[in-house]
Structures are given as C-alpha cells and as structure tokens.
C-alpha cells in the first residue's frame, strides 16, 4: 500500500495537499465515517439498514473467524445498492466516491467458526449475501462505534465496525434460480461455479456464495475467507474458459486493446500464438504500495501454469479469457497494467476485472508484428519503462519457433 510519509500529513493537516492528491484521503475517510456514525442510534444499541449486499469473511484467526455484515445505517431499498455495486460503479464513480461509500458501510462483526455454514443459512445472513437486491436487516450492537482518524499514512476504504450481538434479516433475499437449486445440490464447488457462471450469474455473487459456504459437497461446506474465495472463483472460471480457448484457432493479427479507470491504465496485446500470458505491472512512484517505479511481471504457459498466484492477475486473466471464449479464438496475451499515484487506496481487484473487461471492447490498433505493437504501447505508457527490457516480454520477443529450423 502507498505510504504517504506521516511527516507530510502532520505538516499538511489536509489543507496544503502536500501529497499531490486532489483531496485529502484521510479527511475524506474521516468525513464519511463521521457522517455514518451520526446515523447510528447509540442509545437503543440498534442498527438498521439494508445490506447492498456486502458481506466479508475475514481470514484472521482461521478457523475462528469474523464475518462482517456491512450495511449503511438508515439506508434502505435501491439506494443501499450503491454502497457496493462494482459493475455499475465502473466509469462513473471516482476513487474518492468509492472510498466514501465503503467507509459509510458499518461492519456488523459476527464471530463464527468456519463450520457454522448452516447456522448463517438459517438466519438468512448467507442468503442475504447473494441476493440480487438489497436486504433490510436489524442488528443489536454491543460496545461503541468510534470514528477513528489514524495518521499512519495508510488509507483503507473501510468504515467503522461494531460487534453485533444479533443480526436479523427482515427482507426476503432474492435469489436466482440457479442459486436456489445449487445451494441444495450436492455437487463439488468447481462444478457449481461452472454452472453458475454459465447461467450468467454475476461473478461477485458467486464469490459471496463460495465465501459463505453455499457451494460444494454438503459435508465439506465451510466459510471461506473472501480474499481466498475471490481467487478460487477466478481460477475455477478461468480453468473452464481455458479448456475451451486452448482448442481454438489463434488470432491472425496483433491487436491492442486499452482502457483506464481509477488511475489504473491497461493495455492488452493479443498476438498469433498458442495460449500463453505475460502480465506486467508498472507501479509509479508514490502509487499505492510503492515509493519508486517498480516493474513486476509473471508468465503463464499454455498449460495454465503460472509463476506465482496473484489476485490482480487472476481477475484480469478471467476477463481476457471471457473475451477469447466469446470470439472463439486463442492467442498469446500480454497484459500491461500501469498504476499511477491517482490510485491511492486499495479497492480490491474488482476494478481490474471490470476495466480489462471494458478494455476488450475497445480495440485501439492492429499490427502485423508483435514488435510494432510493443512499440505502439511503449509510446503510450506514462512511466519511463522500456518494455523490450522487461524479462517476460523479452522472452516472448526473442523465442524462436522450432519450425523456422525445418527444411
């Protein structure tokens, strides 16, 4: 995560904007938290609102974990949906607005064991998480909700949390037919994800279902920390798509796609080859997690084996595979993600999935050779990085094929 030097914040106090951002992220968060806590009725120890839905299963202390049932206090109906709505946010909401939405969600923290799947199902908390519409709920809370302001330079788009003694779901969650069936089917999780995805279910709902233990063999069902579930769902969908894409004919031209959102700039190059992927991330100085220009890369081969697991890569890969499956083509793929200082708060990997998805609808150029395409992208980069010097790209450019030695 980007660390804004605390000395700067102390000198600035949100007025001089010494960090170079347009507004102070700490104050933005503080305002949102204060506005939210003002809406909580501390006397009655009650918290009412509709979850968009937004439920997060934590990983700390596994298998004794905390589940955050998030809701904006006093907000009901469709208005509540805006607080977690990645598909609709894309291109419309700024990073500050998203931070503000997230910070306005109060986490009702429920302590649970990973085996408590059916308990959460009976209370309809699990079902609320996969509802297509916001679900009203009432919580009895314990302890205090505090609006904290930390000067450590880290900015997390998370709202205040409060221990929930009891969470009561008062609206009926609205589930798709596929979900209604698969919750009771005794099929393995991979199959269930495959079926839900094929039925057109939104990936975020599948992640929530996986996370709340609603999929898989009944005797094996467990709560799965959300961070793990995101990657598990991406790899399950990716596996299904890759099996299909691997068998298709390759694209016959070199194509470049592009899209940007939230200070993240994506170029995707498809070139004639058997399926393989090169993922390059260029972190600008003072962007999240990085104080200097950093380039990191990874390769995935034809068999779907990658150097290491990276959640951001998995999300981008899913979107590219979706496109290749749609056009019934295979390809060599190079994805270049540039992260600029505009991206100052970690927002999860949903925006990577959505931006790459949108990029695949926006072809910016076509070339005869990969070298020309790399040169084209090079000229469009914001950072001073020589792409041909990036190890994984150099491997692609320098690798000869064995046919060229046949007589």
């Amino acid at each position, binding site marked *: 995560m980007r660390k804004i030097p605390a000395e700067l914040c102390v000198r600035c106090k949100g007025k001089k904007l010494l960090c170079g951002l347009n507004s102070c992220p700490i104050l933005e968060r503080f305002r949102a938290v204060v506005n939210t806590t003002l809406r909580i009725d501390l006397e009655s120890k009650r918290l009412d609102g509709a979850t968009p839905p937004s439920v997060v299963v934590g990983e700390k202390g596994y298998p004794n974990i905390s589940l955050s049932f998030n809701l904006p206090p006093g907000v009901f109906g469709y208005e509540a949906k805006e607080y977690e709505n990645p598909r609709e946010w894309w291109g419309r909401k700024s990073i500050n607005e998203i931070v503000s939405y997230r910070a306005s969600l109060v986490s009702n923290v429920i302590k649970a064991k990973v085996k408590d799947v059916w308990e959460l199902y009976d209370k309809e908390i699990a079902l609320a998480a996969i509802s297509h519409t916001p679900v009203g709920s009432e919580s009895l809370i314990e302890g205090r909700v505090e609006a904290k302001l930390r000067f450590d330079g880290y900015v997390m788009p998370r709202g205040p949390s409060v221990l929930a003694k009891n969470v009561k779901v008062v609206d009926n969650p609205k589930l798709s037919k596929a979900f209604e069936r698969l919750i009771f089917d005794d099929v393995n999780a991979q199959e269930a994800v495959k079926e839900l995805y094929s039925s057109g279910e939104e990936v975020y709902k599948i992640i929530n279902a996986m996370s709340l233990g609603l999929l898989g063999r009944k005797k094996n069902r467990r709560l799965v920390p959300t961070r793990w579930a995101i990657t598990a769902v991406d790899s399950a969908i990716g596996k299904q798509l890759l099996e299909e894409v*691997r068998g298709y004919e390759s694209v016959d031209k070199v194509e470049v796609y592009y899209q940007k959102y939230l200070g993240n700039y994506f170029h995707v190059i498809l070139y004639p*080859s*058997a*399926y*393989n992927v090169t993922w390059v991330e260029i972190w600008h100085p003072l962007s999240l997690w990085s104080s200097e220009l950093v380039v990191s890369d990874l*390769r995935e*081969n*034809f068999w779907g084996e990658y150097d290491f697991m990276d959640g951001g890569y998995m999300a981008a890969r899913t979107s590219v595979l979706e496109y290749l499956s749609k056009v019934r083509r295979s390809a060599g793929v190079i994805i270049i993600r540039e992260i600029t200082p505009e991206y100052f708060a970690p927002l999860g990997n949903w925006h990577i999935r959505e931006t790459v998805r949108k990029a695949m609808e926006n072809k910016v150029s076509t070339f005869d050779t990969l070298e020309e395409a790399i040169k084209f992208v090079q000229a469009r980069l914001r950072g001073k990085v020589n792409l041909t010097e990036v*190890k994984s790209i*150099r*491997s692609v450019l*320098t*690798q*000869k*094929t*064995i*046919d*060229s*030695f*046949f*007589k």
Partner: protein
Amino acid sequence: MKLKAIDASALANIFATVGEFMNEASIVSTKDGIRISGIDPSRVVFLDIFLPSAYFEEYESEEKEIYGFSLKEVNQVLKRVKKNDSITIYTEQEKINVDISDGFERIFKLPILGSSEPQNPSMNLEFPFKAKLLTAVFSEVISDLFNLGDTLIISSKEQKLYLEVRGDLGNSTVELSTDNGGLIESEGSDATSIYGMEYVYNTAPMRKPSDTVELAFGSQLPLKLRYELPQGGYGDFYIAPRVE
C-alpha cells in the same frame, strides 16, 4: 499392435515426458518399433521418441498402424504404475487397453482418437558442439538451476560445457568437462546459445528410463537432447533458441 514391457515405470516416465509437451499424440507402430513425435503447442519443441521392437518383452505390429490418444488420460492411468509392475498395451476395437500387472491385473480401456500420421520434419542441423553425459548428472544440474531463473545459457569452450542461469538475485554457472567427470565425451567448437529453462526442465522425467544423454547445440541453433534408451531406442528433443 501389442507390446509388453517388463519395466512399466520406465515406459510411464516416457509418456509423462511427452505429456509435458503435448495434449494428444499419435503412436505409429511398424515392424521395427513404435514412434511418438510432434511439436508442442508453443511450437518451440519438436520431440521424436523411438522405441524399437527389441525394447519390449513382446511386440506385435502390422506393417503400419497409427493410433491417436490423449496423453492426459494415458498418464492418469500410468500414474498408478508401481516399481515392480509390468505393462501390456494393445489395441482392440477402437480402444487402447493398458494392462498393468504385478501378480494381479488392472486393465484400463481408453478411447483411440482419430489421427493422421505425423509429418516428421527434416532438420539436418550441423551442431558445432556435442557432448555425452549421464542423464542423472544432467537432470540434477538442470533441477538445481531451474529455480534460479527462466533462461538457460549454454556455452562450450575448449571442449567444456557451461550451463548458466542469470536470475534476479544472481548468476549461477555449472562447468562440466571430461576432466571433472561431468561429461563422458565432448567434441566440437566454442558456441553460446540461450534457451527457455522450462522446456529443458520438462524433459527431466527421462532421467528414469535413460542412462545417458547426448547434448548438441550451436550459437542461435536449437538444443538437441537425445536421451538414449535400451536396445537402440531414443528420445530426441529439439528446443528452439531465444535469439537476442
């Protein structure tokens, strides 16, 4: 076609190696023996495996028979092979039967996939440097270097062979020569070439069925690895270079 091998695990390792490079392959059987060949999907590696009839305990074939098969399926079956098992592979009514035996028999029937005879390309490459070494030595060196980087630099100087990796954290070079016992024999001139480490590493399962490997390469030329197998059999792997 019918063949029986006493050492089932050696045959299983040969199929496992082919499976590192290809999804599907064809067995071409003749009176002389069986051949499996093809190019991997990234078109970097051409492999050509030949097992002569004498390699097998029992061997029967028509003049020419061609059977396509899924390596994933075959390898799933062959994973069950244990140390003392023998194996019989025979075709029967659109099926390839794999019979693994160690006292009691386990028979697996796999579908034959439609296939045409692979067109074996001709390369006629003149390699400036050749060396022979123990497969165990070669695979151990490659396994050691594999985790250090994804680019393998092979060079020869004064009849010595150098295998080098330049990784993010540092460089590592292994020198093999007839003097230090790393090579059994070597001949040729000085050369340097670069190869994708993964392709070389993926030939590693050949360590079990093969005792010696012949390595041949040249500057900006493919790397040829010939894993020598009993009774004149061989597993040839031609790996295209990376040219800077």
